[in-house]
């Protein structure tokens, strides 16, 4: 199949589908019409798209944790706890890493070991192995909308199963679930595979069932300049829209400088809306803000500080939802209790800040203009490379380093750019690689980093980047030299 940004035909879709559903025995339980009938009976308060719309209209920010364990009953217990004790507004099903690599046999080992050891030996819920019936069992055990959160380059079978299982949101995208999550899967392949997922979502929409789709905003979660993550989000939004997706949540991971973070969310909405309008898509757009995705302090009190500041930024930015970290973040996967603690701290801050927004200032305006200009430089070139076809352009943009995600594992990513913080903690481009920014933008980024270097009495260098990666874990935003 040749990649192009065009809605899959029914024939193309069904041909793939026939094969996909055989990838694991649970695939045979998926029946689209039966699934639609089931989903139409799911009450509105458990529909992800509807709950996001309501939050957006009310101007509030919803809190959603990450959570998933190997066994169904344990997973239900976990979600119920996050709902009842934590007060989560939306529930996740974090999928384990074997499923993300389509290694369902290893999931089976993990499930069996988890039963034997009486603790989860998987870092998430192996949803393909558990199948449609168990997805519904989970949905019926809770009173909130459910989403799959994973990192699966080829999520076609997973997507079939979760939606048939009544989960009304799916995270991912051809870029955002490849470049940060895979080593050697081509972008052509993942964009095609996610066109399938988006087309399935589109079909549900056409059959009267609302399904939310959420490209993964933070990418590698580590010093990703807002213009790069916004460019990815807008592209994935446009690709999804072409396949018939109607309810979209675009995301961004906290960098830590308030003005930059607020500017990133606001420009994401403004710029994405412009592109949707230009290309004729009618999209219900909401946003998700990810609390700090980088290294966390091991001390739980300090972690609460990081979590709460993320919650405050989400509220001040006016994000529709915030993805919540936990006080155990530095230690790996949290206990149920720690997970609920993260939600409670977050919701307290969201409630205190209800209705408060960062007010417009010349600094905020300047930052918004900068992010928009940078994003436009990238997107213009992507369209140019694809001769108007966004899917083709995206593949070529990664090939040529026009798009480039810092610290990504994929060999399809150029890995030439380097980010670092300026004196105010905003993330700037230290090395542009082949990103086609204007000279003004390049000079401005450089100038900000030179100012920091001067403050610190050292040269702009990779050591600055390393210091920034570990800074939050050590208690600061900007990684200053130790002797400073």
């Amino acid at each position, binding site marked *: 199949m040749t990649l192009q940004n065009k809605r899959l035909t029914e024939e193309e879709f069904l041909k793939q589908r026939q094969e996909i559903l055989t990838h694991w025995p649970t695939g045979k339980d998926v029946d689209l019409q039966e699934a639609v009938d089931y989903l139409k009976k799911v009450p509105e308060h458990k529909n992800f798209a509807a709950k996001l719309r309501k939050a957006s209209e009310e101007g509030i920010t919803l809190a959603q944790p990450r959570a998933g364990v190997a066994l169904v009953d344990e997973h239900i217990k976990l979600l119920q706890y996050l709902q009842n004790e934590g007060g989560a507004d939306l529930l996740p099903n974090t999928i384990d*890493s074997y499923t993300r690599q389509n290694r369902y046999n290893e999931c089976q080992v993990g499930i069996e070991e988890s039963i034997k050891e009486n603790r989860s030996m998987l870092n998430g819920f192996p949803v393909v192995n558990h199948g449609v019936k168990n997805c519904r069992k989970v949905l019926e055990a809770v009173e909130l909308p459910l989403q799959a959160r994973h990192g699966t380059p080829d999520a076609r079978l997973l997507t079939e199963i979760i939606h048939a299982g009544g989960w009304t949101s799916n995270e991912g995208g051809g870029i955002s679930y490849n470049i940060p999550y895979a080593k050697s899967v081509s972008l052509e392949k993942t964009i095609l595979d996610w066109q399938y997922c988006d087309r399935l979502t589109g079909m549900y929409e056409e059959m009267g069932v609302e399904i939310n789709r959420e490209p993964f905003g933070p990418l590698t979660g580590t010093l990703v300049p807002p213009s790069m993550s916004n460019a990815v989000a807008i592209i994935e939004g446009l690709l999804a829209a072409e396949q018939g997706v109607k309810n979209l949540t675009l995301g961004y991971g906290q960098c830590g400088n308030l003005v930059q973070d607020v500017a990133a969310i606001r420009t994401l909405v403004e710029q994405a809306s412009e592109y949707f309008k230009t290309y004729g898509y009618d999209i219900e757009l909401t946003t998700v803000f990810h609390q700090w995705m980088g290294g966390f302090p091991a001390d739980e009190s300090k972690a609460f500080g990081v979590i709460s500041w993320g919650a405050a930024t989400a509220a001040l930015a006016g994000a529709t939802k915030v993805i919540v970290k936990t006080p155990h973040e530095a230690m*790996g*996967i949290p206990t149920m209790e720690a997970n609920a603690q993260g939600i409670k701290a977050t919701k307290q801050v969201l409630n205190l800040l209800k209705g408060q927004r960062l007010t417009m200032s010349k600094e905020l305006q300047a930052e918004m203009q900068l992010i928009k200009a940078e994003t436009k430089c990238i997107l213009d070139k992507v369209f140019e490379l694809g001769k108007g076809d966004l899917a083709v352009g995206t593949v070529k943009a990664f090939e040529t380093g026009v798009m480039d995600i810092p610290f990504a594992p994929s060999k399809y990513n150029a890995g030439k750019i380097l980010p670092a913080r300026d004196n105010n903690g905003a993330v700037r481009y230290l090395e542009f690689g082949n990103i086609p920014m204007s000279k003004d933008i390049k000079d401005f980024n450089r100038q900000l980093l030179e100012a920091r270097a001067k403050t610190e009495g050292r040269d702009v260098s990779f050591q600055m980047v*390393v210091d920034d990666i570990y800074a939050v874990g050590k208690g600061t935003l900007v990684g200053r030299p130790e002797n400073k």
Partner: protein
Amino acid sequence: MKKNIVLGVIGADCHAVGNKVLDYAFTEAGFEVINIGVLSSQEDFINAAIETNASAILVSSLYGHGEIDCRGLREKCEEAGLKDILLYAGGNLVVGKQEWAPVQKRFEDMGFNRVYAPGTSPQVGIKHLKEDLQII
């Protein structure tokens, strides 16, 4: 002469940031780093170590499945003729917040020479590696 070491992230784990930083730090410290990157199998580590005549294999695992992924690595190294190769492991090796001592013991029992708790600085590993390889 520089010592060769194999660096990588084992299993279905795609955390690349620490990997890139370890690469930078061990290279700076004078080692020749063969970085096989993320999503690497036990075989990938062993093949790279044989090909480059490496003195040590540094295994990272950040996603909590390290216990499953690392099992049998020492035995496979022995089978492949890597008799005395140093095996180090670090990252977030197990699912969830667990007491560290038993985790370390489990990995040592699996044949790892050094096992690192979450948040350990690369400098600690560099110091140990120099000691273990008797580099002054």
